[in-house]
């Protein structure tokens, strides 16, 4: 079977992932680009006896050396030399999209243009002359509507056709006008002499990049024999042309698009659309933020209240399984292991699945409809004042579900400093795993103020996140300076498709699932082991003497440190396990009281009557759980995303210290006003 290597590229928001899914049937192999944190998606498509191996390149507006995404895309095309590059162009946004197309043509990539969102363009009143466009650019152009799976066959045919006709491809030379063209030719002819370079890279492209002072290309030339000559030409050029050639050339490209291509290709007025009408309200100075908050609340209600019965169902299922196991297995140790350890563990982990998936579903809807960009717009001003980037609020939102995908979501923030700052304060967003802790303690100890107790933790988290962000901005030299300004494209509003929304939800959710399946589960087994052994000491006849378990020993060991906070060894042990995963904290308490059910009144009662906490120390404990180090999985992700031990350790340390300080303040304040 003939093998064709295909790369997909295009601006953000053009429907690239939809086309990828259409071509590969949704089956993708996801990994990372080597040495980078950017995701790499690959898949295959078989069509008419040819096997297409498809790689999804990062969405980008251009192919400069200024951002990781662009470099990855560019390097892939230049070094891997895919047989075909499918350039996905948004038909409703032709002018800007063609900028990337021109860059691809200069890279001498063998492209096939997928002119996507054909229906949207028509709705906007555009008429595009596809034949003329194809003629001008010298490449096949295939109109598509990815969401309706229209044009996919033609696209595949075009890819196969173009792959076969590779040698006969017409070379397109983009003329930049007199002074530029001459210099480009001169530099190109010099570079041509270096056989190694000219064999690997398109020479004209190298010349243009040198003129633009492209860092990566300069590095290439650095090791070349023709370096001196090239440098000489460049300094000559600088005298004749303007200083900032990169921008000058960018302008030239747009001039070509606007004056040469579009007039022959595009007809259509640009009426203001439904999108602009909706934006009047969504971006309104007075209502914009309020609407965002209202939608955020709706998202929360959806996440927690609609998912609840599903969580209950899962809990019921596993406790039933546990019961069956304990009655069927005669060996008490094995029975306990299977029933409490495995089933109990799985049950505890999977109860968190519904809220997280519901949250991501809601977020996917907001994102795909186009609203989320508007939210970034209205929140930008506030975020900026807090020292955070406008887009920081998305990871914050996700953080309320689970910090692991939240930290990964910081990738959309360009500037490193902004990204790291957002990552540092992200764990203060109370993730859904901490909620059971609040509910347990509030219902056990706060009486009628229980709801207030739970709310207050969320508020506390947000307040602290703000304070820390401001503090770090002011005091840590690395963060000094303002966050980078907002440049964000607001896409047209549209009704999300079921398929793409579900795929989005799954992409984020599976990260939690992976963490859940491994770390939390192992953590629960660890708790089981430590709380049940040494077996004889713990299980004396019918009674369960937890004070004799390893868990208790561990807790008592740490207890002195937490003494000022009035946390006893149970709390200490619970917190210790909370480091592994916050989901285990409540389970640890349940184990102490010999209960398998973690939810429910029994545990609250037990907690209250055992006198482990007073209302004040309970509140302090909640605050401590909120603030202290994030779970292991989050720490792991922080390390991966920041790429440095320094920041990871910093996060863990400052949060431990902050947690201790805040808890201490609560306890002290409580004592002062008389609530011991």
């Amino acid at each position, binding site marked *: 079977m003939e093998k064709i290597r295909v790369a997909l590229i295009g601006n953000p*928001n*053009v*429907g*690239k*992932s*939809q*086309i990828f899914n259409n071509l590969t049937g949704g089956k993708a192999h996801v990994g990372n680009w080597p040495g980078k944190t950017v995701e790499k998606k690959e898949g295959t498509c078989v069509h008419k006896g040819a096997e297409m191996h498809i790689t999804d390149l990062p*969405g980008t507006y251009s192919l400069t050396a200024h951002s990781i995404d662009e470099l990855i895309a560019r390097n892939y095309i230049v070094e891997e030399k895919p047989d075909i590059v499918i350039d996905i162009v948004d038909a*409703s946004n032709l002018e800007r999209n063609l900028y990337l197309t021109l860059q691809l043509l200069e890279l001498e990539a063998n492209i096939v243009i997928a002119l996507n*969102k054909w*229906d*949207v363009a028509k709705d906007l009143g555009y008429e595009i002359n596809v034949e003329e466009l194809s003629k001008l650019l010298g490449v096949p152009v295939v109109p598509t*509507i*990815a*969401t*309706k799976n229209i044009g996919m066959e033609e696209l595949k045919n075009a890819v196969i056709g173009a792959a076969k006709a590779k040698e006969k491809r017409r070379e397109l030379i983009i003329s930049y006008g007199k002074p530029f063209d001459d210099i480009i030719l001169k530099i190109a002819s010099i570079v041509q002499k270096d056989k190694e370079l000219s064999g690997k890279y398109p020479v004209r492209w190298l010349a243009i990049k040198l003129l633009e002072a492209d860092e990566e290309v300069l590095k290439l030339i650095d090791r070349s024999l023709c370096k001196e000559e090239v440098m000489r030409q460049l300094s000559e050029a600088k005298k004749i042309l303007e200083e900032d050639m990169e921008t000058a050339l960018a302008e030239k490209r747009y001039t070509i698009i606007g004056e040469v291509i579009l007039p022959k290709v595009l007809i259509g007025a640009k*009426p*203001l*659309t*439904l*999108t*602009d*009408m*909706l*934006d*009047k*309200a969504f971006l*309104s100075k007075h*209502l914009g933020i*309020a*609407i965002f*908050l*209202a*939608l955020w*609340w*709706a998202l929360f*209600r*959806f996440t927690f*209240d*609609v*998912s*609840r*019965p599903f969580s*209950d*169902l899962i809990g*019921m299922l596993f406790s039933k399984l546990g019961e069956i196991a304990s009655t069927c297995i005669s060996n008490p140790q094995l029975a306990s292991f299977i029933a409490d350890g495995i089933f109990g563990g799985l049950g505890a982990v999977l109860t968190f699945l519904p809220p997280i998936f519901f949250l991501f579903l809601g977020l996917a809807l907001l994102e*795909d*409809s186009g609203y989320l960009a508007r939210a970034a717009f209205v929140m930008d001003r506030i975020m900026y004042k807090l020292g955070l980037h406008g887009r920081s609020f998305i990871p914050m939102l996700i953080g309320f579900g689970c910090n692991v995908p939240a930290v990964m979501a910081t990738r959309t923030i360009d500037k490193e400093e902004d990204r790291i700052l957002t990552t540092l304060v992200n764990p203060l967003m109370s993730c859904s795993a901490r909620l059971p802790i609040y509910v347990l303690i509030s219902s056990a100890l706060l009486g*009628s*103020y229980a709801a*207030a107790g739970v*709310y207050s933790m969320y508020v506390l988290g947000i307040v602290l996140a703000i304070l820390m962000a401001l503090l770090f901005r002011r005091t840590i030299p690395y963060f000094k300076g303002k966050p980078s300004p907002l440049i964000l494209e607001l896409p*047209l*509003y*549209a*009704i*999300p*498709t079921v398929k*793409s929304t579900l795929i*989005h939800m799954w992409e984020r959710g599976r990260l939690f699932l992976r963490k859940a399946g491994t770390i939390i589960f192992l953590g629960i087994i660890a708790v089981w082991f430590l709380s049940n052994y040494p077996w004889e000491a713990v299980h004396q006849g019918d009674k369960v003497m937890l004070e004799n378990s390893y868990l208790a020993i561990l807790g008592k060991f740490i207890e002195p440190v937490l003494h000022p906070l009035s946390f006893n060894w149970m709390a200490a042990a619970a917190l210790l396990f909370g480091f592994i995963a916050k989901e285990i904290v409540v389970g640890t308490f349940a184990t102490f009281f010999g209960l398998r059910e973690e939810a429910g009144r029994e545990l609250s009662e037990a907690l209250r009557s055992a006198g482990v906490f007073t209302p004040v120390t309970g509140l302090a404990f909640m605050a401590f759980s909120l603030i202290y180090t994030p779970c292991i999985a989050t720490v792991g992700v922080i390390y991966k995303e920041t790429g440095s031990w320094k920041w990871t350790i910093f996060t863990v340390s400052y949060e431990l210290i902050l947690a201790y300080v805040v808890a201490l303040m609560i306890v002290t304040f409580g004592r002062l006003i008389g609530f011991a």
Partner: protein
Amino acid sequence: MKRKVENRWIVIYAVVLGIIYIIFGAAEFVLGICNLFSLMGNAGFIEVIPADIFGGFAALVIGSTYLSALSLLKGLRESLGYILVGLFLSVVYGAIYLLIVCADGFGILLTSLEGEAWTWEWLTRGSAGSGLLRPEIWLFFMSLPLAYLTLRKTERRGLNMPKSRESL
């Protein structure tokens, strides 16, 4: 002219809805605050309006959005924009509360499998405050005719929303 008259009706309809949302929103909000500090016990007012701080706030937002349709001075386009967004929010909240009621029902089904008695209580009392009696649900249904009228108007003006949306 028929068009001008129809416009005015749409705006009035929206404004009326807006006022009702604001009234209920304020009530829910105030009750919620009282509940938080245990000032009045745990009940909702007239068993229909739940004590809900954030839900009340949201209703206030929806109401304000509808009321902003009064900016007809700035042109019909602006006014319609607010109405459409108001409708969107009505639908979102109506749907969510309905879903919550269903979820409660599902939850009761589960407990009945565990042996507890089946009740129909979830229809009128539950996580969504007053269940099906929740004002926002009724207001959602009341917004539907407005939705029909407004969408018909935007279609005629040729401002269709593209029914496709791709994502990165």
